[in-house]
């Protein structure tokens, strides 16, 4: 959402936009001003800048989010093994402490930048911006951003990525999308990981996990995989290859992509803003 095009205006707040201007004077010397400014303004501004960097260099940026220990780093290790001959990959790692994950990625022979957030529970666009400047984007095709393991805060911060991938490991419970709607609604793709463990777990129903995602009005595809035994990895790798092609086509056409949730939101808010203008016009 931005302040220039009016897409901040939703049907929930359009009553605030009054004909005759946004500034109204009260009698007691107090001036009331309608603002409708997004409070993530500063972060989102940097995120837009990051996305421009990625697009300018023809790079696909993917944000991986999940709870801690759901297998993000293990998935990246396997993914790099399968794709490093075909694509130039780098990883930005977010953790509260340690270089452990970046070292694991470097052992796969690709560059990795570790962001240690201290006590911050998520990455934000500023942190990613600094990390991006330590990468040579022109020599890359895909940048994976491995967010801090957390099913809450990372969902609220646009980093400048093109796509959100949310992992749910089968040890966590199939009702996670219902418990953490903000996170799972943000997913462009949901991965059910550690499926090799399904054999010993009788309480995780992959269909239920998908149904709970659909309850969030999400059309995101669901891929079941195991980084340990390799099941389902080809579907994930194929999805990634397709996304790289789509990104290169977008760059060629001068287009860009925001994660699905933000794109839909912006379109909708523009429509509401137009409606409210029409209403104001007919009822001055």
């Amino acid at each position, binding site marked *: 959402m931005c302040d220039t095009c009016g897409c901040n205006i939703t049907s929930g707040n359009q009553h605030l936009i009054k004909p005759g201007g946004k500034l109204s004077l009260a009698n007691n010397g*107090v001036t009331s001003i309608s603002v409708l400014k997004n409070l993530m303004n500063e972060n989102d501004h940097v995120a837009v800048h990051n996305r421009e960097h990625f697009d300018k260099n023809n790079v696909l940026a993917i944000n991986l989010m999940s709870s801690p220990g759901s297998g993000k780093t293990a998935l990246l290790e396997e993914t790099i093994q399968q794709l490093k001959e075909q694509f130039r990959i780098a990883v930005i790692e977010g953790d509260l402490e340690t270089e452990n994950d970046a070292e694991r990625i470097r052992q796969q022979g690709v560059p990795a930048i570790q962001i240690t957030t201290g006590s911050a*529970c998520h990455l934000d666009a500023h942190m990613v911006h600094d990390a991006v400047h330590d990468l040579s984007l022109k020599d890359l095709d895909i940048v994976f951003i491995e967010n801090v393991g957390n099913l809450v805060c990372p969902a609220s911060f646009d980093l400048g990525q093109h796509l959100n991938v949310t992992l749910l490991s089968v040890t966590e419970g199939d009702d996670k999308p219902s418990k953490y709607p903000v996170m799972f609604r943000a997913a462009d793709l949901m991965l059910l990981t550690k499926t090799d463990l399904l054999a010993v777990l009788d309480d995780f129903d992959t269909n239920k996990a998908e149904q709970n995602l659909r309850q969030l009005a999400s059309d995101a595809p669901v891929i079941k995989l195991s980084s340990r035994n390799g099941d389902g990895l080809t579907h994930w790798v194929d999805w990634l290859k397709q996304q790289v092609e789509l990104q290169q086509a977008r760059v060629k056409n001068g287009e860009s992509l925001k994660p699905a949730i933000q794109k*839909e939101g912006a379109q909708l808010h523009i429509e509401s803003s137009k409606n409210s203008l029409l209403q104001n016009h007919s009822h001055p």
Partner: protein
Amino acid sequence: MHELAICQEIIIQVNAIASENQASSIESITLQVGPLSGVEAPLLKQAFPFAAAQTVAEHAALIIEELPVIVECKQCGSHSTVATNKLICAQCGDYHTRLVSGDEMLLASVELNREHQADKNQLAEANHV
């Protein structure tokens, strides 16, 4: 969560508005927050005094309007007010819906105190006469 950072952003924005409008202080700040924004109103209220201390908004009231989650069905077109984790159409049950309200996190309006400034202007006018 990141409520303190949000409060700091509020202070940056209202500070700019106050100086643009030559206000001496801020009476109230109204936010609109939907549950799907990921921000909790009680936590914002707790964090606000820390961010507002020694600023133009130090004595401002923070008013938070919590907006409902409303979806519009792409199949049958009806609007329903729904739970945050059940964004399906309440009429026909289809999950192809779009969110009409509920993910907002906006600075909606600000009430500025300009009395001090108005007094000064009057004084200037009186002197002129």
